[in-house]
C-alpha cells in the first residue's frame, strides 16, 4: 500500500479534529434537479441528431402544406390548357440555372408560350399548377395519415386495453378474432372496402386502412397492459382498493403512452404510403383532388418527357415518410424506459 502514509508526517490543524455536527436529516437531500418524465424524454429526443433532423424536416413540410396553398395564386383545380406541361420555374433560383423554365433539352417553354407567370414546380397536362397541387396533396396525404392513425389509436387502445386488462376467456375470444382478421389479406380487405363506395374520398380511404390497421396497435397495447398489470405499483393500487377506472387511467395508460405514441408515429407514414399505393393501382383519391400518391402515379405516366411531374411529389412524399420515421425512431429511444436509470 504505497499510498498509506506515516501518520506523523501529516500535520493538520488540530481544530479539525473536533467532532463535526451530525445532522441525519440533511442526508436525505436530493441534489439533482427534478425532471419529469416528459421533460427528460424531450431532452433525450433533441439530443438525437436523426430525430432533430426529422423534426425540422417535418415542420418545414407541415408549414408548406398548411400555408403554400393559401398563399398560392392558383387553385389546385384551376386548369389552363394553354399553360399545360410547363417545366418548373422559380424566381431567384432560376438564376442558378435550375428551375429556370427550361426542359431537359434546354428549351425555354415559358418564352415560347409567352408565359410571364411563375409555376414553381411546373404544370401538369391540364395546365394545373403543380406547386399548389403538391402541397394540397400533402395536406390530403397527411389528413389520411392522421385520420387513419387516430382511429387506429382509438380502436386499438380500447380493444387491446380491454383484452389485456380483463384477460381470461374474454381475452382468448378477442385474440382469436384478431387472428382471424390478421389472416385475411390486408389488400383484399382494403380494396373491397373502397369498392363499396363509388367515389373514394379521404374518409373512405382512411377508414379502409383502419379496417385491419388497428390490429397491430391493439397487440402492442395488450402486450404492454399484460406486462404492466402485474407490476407492483398496480398491485399496490389494487390493495388500496382502486376501482378499474383509476387503475386504467392513472396507472396503466400513462405508462403505455410511450409505445402508443411511437406506434402512432409509425402508423402515419405507413398510412400515407398505403394511400400512395392505392393511387398507383387506381383506387386512390379521384381528380381534381390530389394526394401525393396520386400525383406520383400521374407523373409516372410521363416520366420520360416530363420528369418534373413525378420528381417533385416523389421527393415530398419520401421526405415526409422519412421525417416521420426518423422522429418515431427517436421517440422510441427517448421513451424507452430501459434507457432510463
Amino acid at each position, binding site marked *: 500500500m504505497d499510498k498509506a502514509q506515516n501518520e506523523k508526517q501529516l500535520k493538520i490543524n488540530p481544530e479539525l479534529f473536533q467532532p463535526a455536527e451530525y445532522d441525519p436529516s440533511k442526508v*436525505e437531500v*436530493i441534489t439533482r434537479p427534478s425532471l419529469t418524465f416528459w421533460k427528460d424524454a424531450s431532452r433525450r429526443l433533441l439530443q438525437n441528431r436523426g430525430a432533430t433532423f426529422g423534426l425540422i424536416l417535418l415542420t418545414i413540410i407541415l408549414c408548406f402544406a398548411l400555408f403554400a396553398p393559401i398563399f398560392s395564386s392558383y387553385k389546385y383545380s384551376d386548369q389552363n390548357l394553354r399553360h399545360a406541361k410547363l417545366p418548373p420555374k422559380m424566381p431567384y433560383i432560376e438564376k442558378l440555372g435550375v428551375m429556370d423554365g427550361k426542359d431537359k433539352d434546354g428549351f425555354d417553354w415559358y418564352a415560347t408560350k409567352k408565359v410571364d407567370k411563375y409555376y414553381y414546380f411546373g404544370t401538369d397536362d391540364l395546365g394545373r399548377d403543380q406547386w399548389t397541387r403538391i402541397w394540397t396533396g400533402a395536406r390530403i396525404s397527411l389528413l389520411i395519415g392522421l385520420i387513419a392513425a387516430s382511429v387506429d389509436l382509438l380502436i386499438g387502445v380500447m380493444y387491446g386495453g380491454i383484452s389485456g386488462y380483463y384477460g381470461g376467456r374474454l381475452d382468448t375470444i378477442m385474440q382469436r378474432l384478431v387472428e382471424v382478421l390478421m389472416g385475411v389479406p390486408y389488400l383484399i380487405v382494403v380494396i373491397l372496402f373502397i369498392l363499396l363506395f363509388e367515389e373514394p374520398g379521404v374518409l373512405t380511404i382512411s377508414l379502409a386502412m383502419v379496417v385491419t390497421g388497428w390490429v397491430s396497435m391493439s397487440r402492442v397495447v395488450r402486450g404492454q397492459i399484460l406486462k404492466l398489470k402485474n*407490476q*407492483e405499483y398496480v398491485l*399496490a393500487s389494487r*390493495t*388500496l*382498493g*382502486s376501482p378499474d377506472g383509476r387503475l386504467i387511467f392513472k396507472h396503466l395508460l400513462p*405508462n403505455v403512452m410511450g409505445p402508443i405514441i411511437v406506434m402512432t408515429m409509425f402508423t402515419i407514414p405507413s398510412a400515407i404510403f398505403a394511400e400512395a399505393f392505392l393511387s398507383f393501382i387506381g383506387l386512390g383519391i379521384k381528380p381534381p383532388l390530389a394526394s401525393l400518391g396520386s400525383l406520383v402515379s400521374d407523373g409516372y405516366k410521363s416520366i420520360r418527357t416530363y420528369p418534373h411531374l413525378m420528381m417533385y411529389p416523389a421527393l415530398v412524399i419520401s421526405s415526409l415518410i422519412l421525417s416521420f420515421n426518423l422522429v418515431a425512431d427517436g421517440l422510441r429511444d427517448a421513451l424507452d424506459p430501459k434507457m432510463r436509470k
Partner: protein
Amino acid sequence: MENKKVLVEVKNLKQYFNVGKGNTVKAIDDITFDIYKGETFGLVGESGSGKSTTGRTIIRLYDATSGNVIYNGEDVHGKKSRAQLKDLNRKIQMIFQDPYASLNPRMTVADIIAEGIDIHGLAKSKEERMKMVYDLLETVGLNREHASRYPHEFSGGQRQRIGIARALAVQPEFIIADEPISALDVSIQAQVVNLMKKLQKEKGLTYLFIAHDLSMVKYISDRIGVMHRGRIVELANSDDLYANPIHPYTKSLLSAIPLPDPNYERNRKRVVYDPTVHDYSKEEPVLREVKEGHWVLCSEDEFSKYKDEYKF
C-alpha cells in the same frame, strides 16, 4: 399466547395455478396458521416455496382455490359489498419487494402517497390532503420537499419508505410485507427494519413479514413459519425455531445462512436436506404440535420420534 387475540386466521388455504393443459402448480398446498394481534409473523422459504403467493392471497390479489382467510372474524374471500371491500382494503395493506417496480414512474411522490387518501376520500380539502402527505413523509424520515419529485429520483431505501408511507396513508391494522428488504443494500435494510419496528410500536400494527433472509426475519419476528413447496413445514416462536429446529428442511436452511463472522464460517457444518427421509406412503403429513407452540409437519411415526428427540 392464550391472552393474545387472533387477528388473521388462515385455514386450509390452497392456491393452485393452471399452467397449460392439466398442469397445475400447487403454489400453496393446504396451509393453516394464525397471526395474533400486534405480533410480527415471519414467513420464510426459498423461491417457489409459495411464501409470496400466501401474502398475495391473503390480501385478495389472488382468489384462493379453496380454504379461508378470516380477518377479525370476517371471511376475506367471501362475497363482499363494495363498502365491505373498501373497509378491508383500509385495514389490510401491503409493502412490496421491488422498490423500483412498486412506485408508478409517472406519478409524483405526493400523488403516490395520497392514492389511498384519494380512493377512500380521507381528506376533505386539498390542504388537508397535502398536510397528510407531509406528515406521512416525515413519519418515514423523508422531508416535504420530496413530495413533488418523481420516484426515479430516489434511492432504493427512500423508495421503499415511500411505499411504506403509501400503505400507512389509509391507517391499516395489518401490513403484509412481501420481502421488503431483499432488494436493498445492507446499510439501508436496517433503516427500513427499524422504521417498521418503530411504526409497529407507535401504531400497534400487526405484520406478516415475508422474506428469504433468515437473520433479518429472526430479528424482527415473534413467530416464524418455514415454507417449503407450498406447505408450512415448521412453525414456532422465533428463538425456539433457531435454537431447536426440528424439521430436517429447517435444519438445512438454518445451516446454510452465511453469518458475518469468519470464524463461525470456517467451522460451519452444512446440513443437506434429503426429502426421501420422510416416508409418507402410509399417510399424508400434517402439522403437529411437538411442544407448546412449536408445530412441525410430520407423520404419526415422525411425530413420536420428534417428541422423543426433543424432550425439553
